[in-house]
């Protein structure tokens, strides 16, 4: 088909379209829907007994703030990536900074941990990893759908940021439900590492699912 014919065909097919809402608005919508999913997940799992003590610890609160900042930054960047020409590589720093701050806090807690070193039950991280999917799956799916409804061009990196957002949200859920959240080694292996692994898998998922 010649280009002219294609233009004629496309202009005939053209219908009124609803412009994509602003990235801020879409971020807000995702946050609201995801918070509802998270609340449902937390209600189903039950709150951790450690929670009262945890909230009196400034380190725990700071960790939660960093995870929360990672969520907001990564969902915003993922949604920006779904609009052609909006993303700049420098924006990745918005996600990297809170994420690295969280890791630094965990390492700090690990170094300050009492001797003998906190023992790690292997079954517990496995339970947390499965909870990751429970907390992160629905918000993740919803985010991928939102991105696909726009026009992403960089599929892999979009998948990465969308997964970071979804699984960081799951990490927030674990902050409230996990009974071993006071053990920094557990948090690193059962909460932090799964985000990295699942987000790397998200690159491939993005490459497969976001292509139209």
């Amino acid at each position: 088909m010649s280009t002219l014919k294609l233009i004629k065909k496309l202009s005939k097919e053209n219908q009124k379209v609803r412009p994509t809402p602003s990235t801020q608005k879409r971020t807000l919508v995702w946050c609201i829907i995801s918070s509802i999913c998270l609340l449902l997940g937390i209600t189903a799992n039950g709150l951790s007994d450690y929670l009262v003590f945890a909230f009196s610890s400034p380190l725990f609160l700071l960790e939660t703030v960093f995870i929360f900042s990672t969520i907001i930054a990564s969902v915003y960047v993922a949604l920006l990536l779904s609009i052609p020409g909006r993303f700049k590589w420098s924006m990745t720093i918005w996600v990297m900074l809170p994420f690295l701050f969280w890791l630094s806090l965990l390492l700090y807690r690990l170094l300050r941990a009492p001797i003998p070193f906190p023992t790690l039950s292997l079954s517990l991280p496995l339970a947390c990893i499965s909870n990751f999917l429970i907390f992160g799956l629905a918000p993740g799916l919803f985010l991928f759908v939102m991105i696909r409804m726009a026009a992403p061009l960089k599929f892999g990196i979009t998948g990465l940021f969308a997964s970071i957002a979804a699984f960081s949200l799951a990490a927030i859920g674990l902050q409230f439900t996990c009974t071993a959240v006071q053990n920094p080694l557990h948090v690193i292996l059962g909460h932090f590492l799964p985000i990295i692994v699942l987000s790397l898998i998200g690159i491939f998922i993005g490459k497969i699912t976001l292509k139209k």
Partner: protein
Amino acid sequence: MKHNNQYRWSLLMTLSQKGDNDAYETLLTELSMVLKSYFYKRLHNKDFVDDLVQDSLLNIHHSRHTYDVTRPFTSWFFAIAHHKLVDFIRKNKLKSDNEQYNETHFDQLCNDSKDNIINIKYDLENAIKQLPYKQQKAIEYLKLKGYSVKESASQLGISDSALKVNAHRAYKALKKILGTQ
């Protein structure tokens, strides 16, 4: 000029989003010409260019709802064009010398993605088009084709001094056109 196009395309896209088929046809026709020159300058192959132009137009069609009227049109548009070009090169692995591609060219291409560079190139092309015919030819032979003054003058069938005068006037005019933006 750049702002005129920005404004014009932005307006045409806004109308297209509201379902105006004539505005959409005009927009796609104008964009197809821009895309043709954009791809041709990078690929130097007409067969590839036509495919890429059509592919980009389809992508623009499917992404038209994502254009935000408050944002510059060219960054949205060239992001799609650049993505199509890089994707095409990756898929076809155009590396042989015959096809004028090598790793360095690819890297250069990726680096050239910045919108301002694209916009500057596009502005310059449009500015040259506004010059009188003789001045356009002077720029074309001396700067784009890289001929010497003597070679250019003989190709154009004018004297060396006449060519120099045309070129000088062209530079002045370009400075004026580009400076007023």
